[in-house]
């Protein structure tokens, strides 16, 4: 009975927690996507501005601009403008036509700025008016009579634009003035959201209490100076929420069915006793399949559908407005507005692109999906990162707009990871449950187990959190390109390892590390001698032992700094002492020949004590009777040492050797403080190299591959060391 209720309870809790978490992450993804969709509508706005400019300039640049013909020209403008004004440089109106705006045109920033521009330069800006948004464009011109003229024209943006955006993105679009006055259907907008958007100069997402997802785009003048107002995209979020809810309903139903299956399974087990436990996995299978189905397919499917909608509406926008805007060649603008990359190819050759560092040469795996109008949509990999592409061809020129799919990939991966964790927790739970059922008649045994694991839990959780998990993660990491600043973490297969084998600097670091490890036998030789010498129970020897051991536990950055001074070529103590014996001055840390030796000296100073103490312990464990027996047989001092001490010290020597080599392969602090890998990379040891790859170059994936290589080398080395010392040496430890 306990088993059944615990299953029901556990399943319910797991269900609620995981669904809540997923809903939250799906909503988060939806919001991010909303920001992208909104960029599309700003693209429409920009395209509108540009097409207006183009129509105006088509007339101005092609027609004869004599003052007598202005009336004729104005008629042409009036086909698409609501007003046209010609002024002289002082602001006196020469000619005008149409419905003039009420505000002072001449003293406005637009005209005042254009006065400082060259002839024929356009400035375009947006103006909020009573009934909506007005585009105004201004230019300074010279008439064919030679007189300077300021030309200003404008048109209302309202109907066309808003209906265009509404149709493309299936969102309601409003314009909100600077003061918060709304043009269009009446609904309230939170003033704080407006303020936030205007302060950050970038779109803000806001979810209203009645389930509307608002995206607020601040509009500034062409100099990004004065706030003009806001465009608001409004999406009724209800249908989306309802679809999540439906998902939850299906999920809940499946959970219910499979939990019932599990409960039935437990009942079967209860009937058949411990023998029936075999069937438990069978009955729990539907549950696992359900969880996997929901997390691996259904929720990612929802996200992918949302993304597909975005791709489709963007394709529509591009097919209507793409060419007119892209042909300007203002790719950086397009990149900024839509958060995409743009490429132009001519006769199949890439002519220009917004990718940096030759990335546009790495396009591969084109996968075409469908076409909307003249736009081809599909997927492509750029430098192993997946992109969606929109391809438009006009004549010989092909425009390719590329959008990174990383947010989608990462969100999907997150949900799938969650699903796997849920299943893992479930398997654990069932495992514990079946263990409990199996031993139901032995309550004391169960209690002891429980207490044991309670005591072990803190250490075990810490181990899983900071050792088992990281190791597993590190294995994945080694096959990824993982840069801290770049959200894209693509799998690159064996690329990291392939690069590793070709990377001369890494193998140089390996070589340096191997050379550095030569200090281990040297230091062991001395430490063994010292250990034998101080192995006497007198007070003075105890004092010496204390002194020798001091650097082991107190040496760190501080003492390394002292050593930097001791190694100084001109004023250092070491060169002075050597000078007494007639040795010429050695540039310890600044010459590539001696820098590694200097660090080895420092290391020997630091590790001598610890090796000595372990040797001492080994020496003291050799029974004194052996030596006495040998003396009676007439063995001399040397014979006693080589025939008794050395063989019996073999296990200790192995222990010291293996741990010291492992330690010396991971030397870092002295290199960091003294030489930073220099001079000429002569002290660039592996650990330092890995640190540089990870925290200077920020290539975490490559650094992880390097650390696995280091681990592998250490493993092989340790294996051979075990072989070298023979079986009887290490049996003492295992």
């Amino acid at each position: 009975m306990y088993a059944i209720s615990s299953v029901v309870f556990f399943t319910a809790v797991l269900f609620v927690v995981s669904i809540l978490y997923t809903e939250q992450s799906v909503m988060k993804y939806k919001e991010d996507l909303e920001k992208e969709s909104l960029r599309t509508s700003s693209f429409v706005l920009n395209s509108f501005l540009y097409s207006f400019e183009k129509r105006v300039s088509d007339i101005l640049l092609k027609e004869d601009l004599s003052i007598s013909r202005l009336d004729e020209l104005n008629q042409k403008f009036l086909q698409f403008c609501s007003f046209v004004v010609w002024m002289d440089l002082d602001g006196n109106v020469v000619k005008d036509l149409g419905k003039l705006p009420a505000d002072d045109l001449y003293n406005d920033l637009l005209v005042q700025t254009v006065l400082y521009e060259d002839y024929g330069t356009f400035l375009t800006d947006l103006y909020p008016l009573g009934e909506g948004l007005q585009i105004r464009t201004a230019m300074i011109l010279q008439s064919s009579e030679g007189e300077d003229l300021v030309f200003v024209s404008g048109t209302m943006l309202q109907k066309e634009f808003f209906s265009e955006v509404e149709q493309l993105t299936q969102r309601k679009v409003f314009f909100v003035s600077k003061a918060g006055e709304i043009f269009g259907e009446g609904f309230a907008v939170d003033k704080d959201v407006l303020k936030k958007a205007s302060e950050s100069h970038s779109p803000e997402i806001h979810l209203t209490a009645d389930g509307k997802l608002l995206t607020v785009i601040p509009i500034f003048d062409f100099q990004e100076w004065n706030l003009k107002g806001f465009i608001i995209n409004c999406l009724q979020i209800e249908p989306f929420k309802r679809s999540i809810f439906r998902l939850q309903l299906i999920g809940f139903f499946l959970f219910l069915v499979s939990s019932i299956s599990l409960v039935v399974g437990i009942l079967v087990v209860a009937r058949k006793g411990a023998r029936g436990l075999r069937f438990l996995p069978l009955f729990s299978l539907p549950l696992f399949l359900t969880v996997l189905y929901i997390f691996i397919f259904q929720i990612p499917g929802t996200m992918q559908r949302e993304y597909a909608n975005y791709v489709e509406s963007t394709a529509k926008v591009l097919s209507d407005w793409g060419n007119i805007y892209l042909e300007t060649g203002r790719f950086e603008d397009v990149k900024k507005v839509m958060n995409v990359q743009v490429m132009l190819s001519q006769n199949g050759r890439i002519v220009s692109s917004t990718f940096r560092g030759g990335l546009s040469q790495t396009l591969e795996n084109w996968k075409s999906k469908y076409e909307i109008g003249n736009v081809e949509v599909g997927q492509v990999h750029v430098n192993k990162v997946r992109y969606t592409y929109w391809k438009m061809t006009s004549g010989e020129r092909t425009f390719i707009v590329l959008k990174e799919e990383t947010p989608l990939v990462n969100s999907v991966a997150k949900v799938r990871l969650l699903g796997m964790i849920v299943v893992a927790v479930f398997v654990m739970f069932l495992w514990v449950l079946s263990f409990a059922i199996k031993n139901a008649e032995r309550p004391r045994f169960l209690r002891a187990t429980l207490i044991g694991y309670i005591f072990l839990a803190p250490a075990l959780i810490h181990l899983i959190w900071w050792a088992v998990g990281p190791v597993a993660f590190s294995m994945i990491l080694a096959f990824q390109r993982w840069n801290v600043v770049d959200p894209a973490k693509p799998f690159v297969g064996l690329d990291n390892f392939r690069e590793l084998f070709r990377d001369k600097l890494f193998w140089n670091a390996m070589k340096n590390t191997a050379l550095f490890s030569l200090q281990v036998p040297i230091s062991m030789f001395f430490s063994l001698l010292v250990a034998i010498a101080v192995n006497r129970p007198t007070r003075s020897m105890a004092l010496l032992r204390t002194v020798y051991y001091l650097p082991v536990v107190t040496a760190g950055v501080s003492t390394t700094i002292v050593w930097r001074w001791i190694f100084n070529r001109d004023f250092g103590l070491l060169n002075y002492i050597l000078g007494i014996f007639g040795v010429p001055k050695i540039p310890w840390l600044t010459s590539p020949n001696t820098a590694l030796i200097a660090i080895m000296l420092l290391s020997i100073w630091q590790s001598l004590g610890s090796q000595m103490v372990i040797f001492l312990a080994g020496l003291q464990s050799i029974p004194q009777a052996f030596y006495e027996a040998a003396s009676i047989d007439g063995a001399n001092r040397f014979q006693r040492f080589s025939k008794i001490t050395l063989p019996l010290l073999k296990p200790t020597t192995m222990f010291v050797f293996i741990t010291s080599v492992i330690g010396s392969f991971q030397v870092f602090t002295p290199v960091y403080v003294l030489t930073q890998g220099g001079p000429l990379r002569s002290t660039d040891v592996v650990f330092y190299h890995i640190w540089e790859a990870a925290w200077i170059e920020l290539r975490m994936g490559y650094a992880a591959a390097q650390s696995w290589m280091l681990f592998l080398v250490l493993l092989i080395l340790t294996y051979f060391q075990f072989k070298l010392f023979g079986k009887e040496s290490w049996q003492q430890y295992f």
Partner: protein
Amino acid sequence: MTKRTFSQISLKVVSIFLLTVLAISTLLPYIVMVSSSLMAQFEIYSFPPKLFPTTPRFQNYVEMWKSQPWGRYIFNTVFVSICVLAGQLLLVSMGGYALSRLNFPGRDTIFRIFIGFMMLPGVVTLIPGFIILRSLGWIDTYMALIIPSLGNIWGMFLTRQYMLTLPQSLEDAARIDGASEFTIFWRIILPLCKPVLATVATFTFLGTWKSFLWPLIVTRSKEMRMIEVGIAMFATQYTIDYPIQLAAATLSSIPLIVVYFVAQKWLLQGIKLSSGYER
């Protein structure tokens, strides 16, 4: 007793002489550190090098103290050390108790897994550990300095070995009196484990105080720096001003040396326990 030969005596003299030279050269960096930290600039740049300053210049310490927020670094180091110490002792003693004195299925397998991870070089978990901290938003917080350092498999191993040597009769008597498992752990086993816990605590304290790589990686701001990182950064900033650098080095080393001499007994015991020889 045989009469001592000439060669035996001379060997002894030579060995004592060499041991003394070694002891002096072992101590030399510490002597240089303290004495040079009291020298003036011109004094340290003199050849032959001076071992002691003509007049000790304590002004160096004042200048050093003013140049960096050393108080903050020391506070961070002490705070982190204490937290790590407390957490580790709890984890180590509870884990050691479970692995040595309790009987439950899976115990030995888990013990073997722990030992296996003790062999793992730290470099493998360094990068993923950093990324985990980053995704938790813990970079540049005390959490990043404390939480990952709480596990000490070596210490747990030591504690387990020590607890195995305690007689079973102690517990049995308490059990007959109706003491709970937790009471036995807290009231009987832990007090007996003071020596081994002191060993673990000493090593942990010294290790945390001079920890360098991890604090270097997981902290960014000055406010979160631990002392050794502070000194390393300081040394790269004031490259020429050796006396002041050495004053900072002395500041950081004094607590280490004091703890070393006070807790020496526990350190040596730890070595003996972990190298496979129990007295």
